């Protein structure tokens, strides 16, 4: 399979959030602001690439009978390292992501890519696969967070120096959109829109 196809599969055809619907727990939780969503996307991407590389390198060493515990050890190690470095160098983001950062360990996107791709492929395709899925995840959560933040709080880029109060002070935000229920509503709509768009492309 061509590398560009692997990348495209991760981002569009098999988008982990909008098509495969895996790892939704963190998707629903961290998408209250764009900045949180983007940071979580970057953390997931880093773990995906790192875990894919190591597992692909070790694919002939890991006995298939104990592959799942071996994968989990590799993934947990990467997540913990990222957690430590975020706490040291990006404390506001570390605080914002809270429990969902360590929970990347059990995010099924990462285990799924390890099991179905990295364990069976060479290093370079595995890197591209990790990158593709990571970007697919990031794009989906950032899109979701943008809508939720805009409608639910009336801001964009909240939490950074660039914060914009889009509708001015008179705007009464629909707080339900930053609440958990809003996450489900927006995610549902987003999946619908995304799949309609990609389906049209396929039939043309």
């Amino acid at each position, binding site marked *: 399979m061509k590398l560009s196809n692997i990348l495209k599969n991760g981002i569009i055809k098999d988008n982990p959030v909008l098509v495969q619907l895996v790892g939704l727990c963190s998707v629903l939780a961290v998408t209250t602001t764009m900045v949180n969503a983007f940071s979580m996307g970057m953390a997931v991407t880093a773990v995906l690439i790192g875990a894919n590389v190591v597992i692909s390198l070790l694919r002939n060493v890991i006995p298939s009978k104990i592959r799942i515990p071996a994968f989990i050890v590799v993934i947990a190690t990467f997540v913990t390292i990222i957690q430590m470095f975020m706490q*040291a160098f990006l404390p506001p983001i570390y605080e914002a992501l809270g429990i969902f950062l360590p929970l990347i360990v059990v995010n099924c996107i990462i285990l799924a890519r390890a099991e179905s791709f990295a364990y069976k492929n060479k290093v370079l395709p595995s890197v591209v696969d990790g990158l593709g899925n990571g970007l697919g995840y990031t794009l989906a959560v950032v899109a979701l967070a943008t809508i939720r933040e805009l409608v639910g709080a009336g801001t964009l880029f909240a939490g950074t120096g660039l914060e914009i109060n889009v509708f001015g002070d008179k705007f009464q935000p629909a707080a339900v959109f930053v609440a958990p229920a809003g996450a489900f509503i927006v995610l549902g709509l987003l999946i619908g829109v995304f799949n309609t768009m990609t389906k049209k492309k396929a039939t043309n």
Partner: protein
Amino acid sequence: MKETIKLGIVLLLFTAIAGGVLAVSNNFTAPIIAERERQESLAAFYDMFKEADDFIDVDESLLEEIKANNQTIREAYEAKKGDETIGHAFKVVSTGFDGDITTVVGVNTDGTISGVKVVSHTETKGIGTRIEGEDFTSSFVGKATESELMPVASPSAENEVLLLSGATVSTKAVLVGVNGAREAFMNYFAN
């Protein structure tokens, strides 16, 4: 049997290497994290004690004793202006609506609260996050530490602070921390 042992050894190797890698990164990041947290509390302390020029840690054995009797206290400092002690600063942790809330509390030597600042929390955005706001934290300033602080909608008495309507749980959680600092001050530092 033989295979089981072999698989066990492979897994042992994996975890041993992972442990080593983690130990190295922890060794590298732990001091940075500790230093940064210290700087953060110090910055908040200087805000509360405008006149202070230094903050020194209270005696370690005393801190241990305070911690043993008071679950909210994490750190305690003396605010110094030259050689004179002008107050005490505490870092407290309490359980909020969603996770821990870390608050720093300053108490003047005369037993009034010099300031309260919520330094970290994971409360609901737009609701519980109001505990960071000036409206809320300024309602603590100048209150007496003799009796337990109570949240009310329009505070006036010496022991009343602002209750944020809609964020009762978060408000009370901060109060648990502040009251912890208040007790520690009354029990160990008040003259």
